[in-house]
């Protein structure tokens, strides 16, 4: 389902194209993120700044997204999902790695080229109250990206397009004259969606687009995003911490823990059969809307807090909290490897854990006391 409403007039080198000027070969994916790393320096001293360490916010993350697909990115607060989104969007330049979008490595483009590439990739932010300039009318907000990218020749064409977009996201054309403060959170997120669609992108990063909304509104926005995808064929990187929301919209889901992807699988596969211990723990935390099941349900409660990304645990970053951890987990880092069904998992013992039925051997706190 590719773009019909999206004429790729001067679209960048087609997705399937072979190597380009940057030497980045495309493997057919719309977006290919390879070994993405984003470290933030930790400094000390007011006058003479010394670097005393790094916050390893995103550490060697790779994934790809095809046209029209949604990749969900989940993980708890501080695990690096938002930083991943920002790094993909080049809002925060990555420390290293490659972000190949429509066949071009964004990290190697000069700033003006990169701005042009932005036309094809857009972003919807978490906070709908902050993401719209309060001093601009909704019409101006949606029109501005078109103006910046010189998309429509005349003002009239742009205005017509603004009305079209407003209707597309379920608002009325006359809302264009209003200001953001006159709208509710859900409506504002619709406006943000219209703004991102104004430049006909093929890919949108949705950074927790529904986390700030009432639960009753969340479904509306999710369904809107799905509907837009069906009609326009845009691909999403959908960042969220709410597992149910992600399941509803994603084709595939990547689970992040402390700057690394620990598991990547089709969304049904992930929920029906989680392989990584962290994914198991996450899913066991989702409440079930049936009190009978809810009371009998086994939960995997992880001891302790998420370690600091300044000084992450050795090898497998999850091992200090993992109920199944063994000596090997502290010495050898498990690589994200392909297992059956096109899914990937980064755990030495996923098969053993699955064979044991997913029941933790001993409560991890006891294991810690014993060791």
């Amino acid at each position, binding site marked *: 389902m590719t773009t019909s409403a999206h004429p790729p007039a001067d679209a960048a080198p087609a997705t399937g194209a072979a190597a380009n000027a940057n030497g980045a070969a495309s493997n057919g994916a719309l977006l290919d993120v390879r070994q993405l790393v984003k470290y933030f320096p930790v400094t000390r001293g007011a006058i003479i700044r010394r670097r005393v360490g790094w916050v390893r916010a995103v550490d060697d993350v790779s994934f790809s997204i095809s046209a029209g697909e949604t990749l969900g990115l989940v993980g708890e607060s501080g695990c690096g999902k938002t930083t991943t989104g920002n790094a993909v969007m080049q809002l925060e330049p990555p420390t290293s790695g490659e972000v190949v979008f429509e066949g071009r490595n964004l990290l190697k483009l000069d700033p003006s080229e990169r*701005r042009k*590439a*932005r036309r094809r990739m857009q972003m919807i932010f978490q906070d709908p109250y902050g993401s719209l*300039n309060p*001093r601009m009318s909704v019409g101006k907000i949606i029109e501005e*990206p078109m103006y910046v990218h010189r998309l429509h020749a005349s003002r009239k064409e742009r205005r017509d397009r603004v009305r079209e977009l407003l209707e597309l996201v379920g608002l009325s*054309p*006359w809302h*264009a*004259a209003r200001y953001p403060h006159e709208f509710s959170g859900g409506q504002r997120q619709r406006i943000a969606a219209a703004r991102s669609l104004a430049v006909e992108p093929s890919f949108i990063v949705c950074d927790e687009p529904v986390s700030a909304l009432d639960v009753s509104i969340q479904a509306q926005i999710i369904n809107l995003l799905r509907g837009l995808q069906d009609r326009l064929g845009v691909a999403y990187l959908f960042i969220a911490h709410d597992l149910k929301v992600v399941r509803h919209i994603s084709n595939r889901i990547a689970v992040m823990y402390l700057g690394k992807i620990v598991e990547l699988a089709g969304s049904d596969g992930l929920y029906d059969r989680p392989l990584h211990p962290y994914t198991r723990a996450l899913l066991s935390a989702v409440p079930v809307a049936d009190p009978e099941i809810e009371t009998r349900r086994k939960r995997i409660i992880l001891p302790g807090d998420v370690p600091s990304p300044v000084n992450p645990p050795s090898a497998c970053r999850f091992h200090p909290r993992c109920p199944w951890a063994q000596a090997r987990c502290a010495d050898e880092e498990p690589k994200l490897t392909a297992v059956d069904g096109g899914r990937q998992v980064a755990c030495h013992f996923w098969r053993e854990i699955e064979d044991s039925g997913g029941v933790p051997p001993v409560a991890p706190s006891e294991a810690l006391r014993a060791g």
Partner: protein
Amino acid sequence: MAVAEQTVNEVGSAAPVRSEWRLAWLRLRRNRAAMAGLGVLAVISLAAVFADLLATESDRHFDILSQGLPPLSERLEPIDDWRPWAQRHVLGTDDIGRDVFTRIVRGARISLRIGFSAVSISLVVGSVLGLTAGYFARWPDMVISRILDVMLAFPGLLLAMTVVASIGPGLNNAMIALGVAGVPFYARVVRGTTLAARDLTYVRAARAVGMSDLRIMLRHILPNVVSPILIMATLGLGGAILAAAGLSFLGLGAESPSPEWGLEVAKNRHLLRSLWWITIFNGAAIAVTVLSINLLGDGLREALDPQASSWSH
């Protein structure tokens, strides 16, 4: 439906009245002191603009015979003039027989011009520096901030005097000097506001959309700077007028035949015992102008930044 039709036509029409500014104006209107200040300032500005209509004669015109006349004295020789106040020296005459009222009215023009020009220089240069430093951070910020720190280390008037000393005395030079002396204050405020605005989500959104830095700075960051700068500029206007009078008083600003207020105070202060009206009325002109501007400035601050004001009506 009629309403809907009408609003459609207004889509994005250039700069519609913003509720934000309307609210500020309503708050300002409730503030009596500020409105009084605004009124007085309006009168003074009009007097400055229509000085030629108001003043009865040239500010250089003198008449040896009518020197040292007290306020409200009648002219020695009646003149043919349509203005009722022209038959009297309303504010008296000075020691060489020049009409004080005429000179004060013409002095208003000088003082307001010097105030507005000095503030404009500070505001424009300060905003450009502050925006650059705040937006780009890193080394531009380092360089600009250190220069500002050095400038701030000198008292403003002293800095202005140094500038005048190096480029020579005179009204225009005093204006430039005061403008330069004011730059660091504006630059600091703009830099601070820019730093805060740079990380607003809608500014990040603008970057994600692919806008150029210049466009982001002008369209999305600058509007945040307007209200603090407006308050500063208003209060700074009074300060600049006062400082200009001070410079003239010290002999570093306006030069002799000029009717500049500060200069008049300085020149005639030795006559304070006999011809008190020259010094007093010129001094009063300075005081009233600066006071009205400060009242307006304080009112603006309360109106534009209601949270920051310590007490409100």
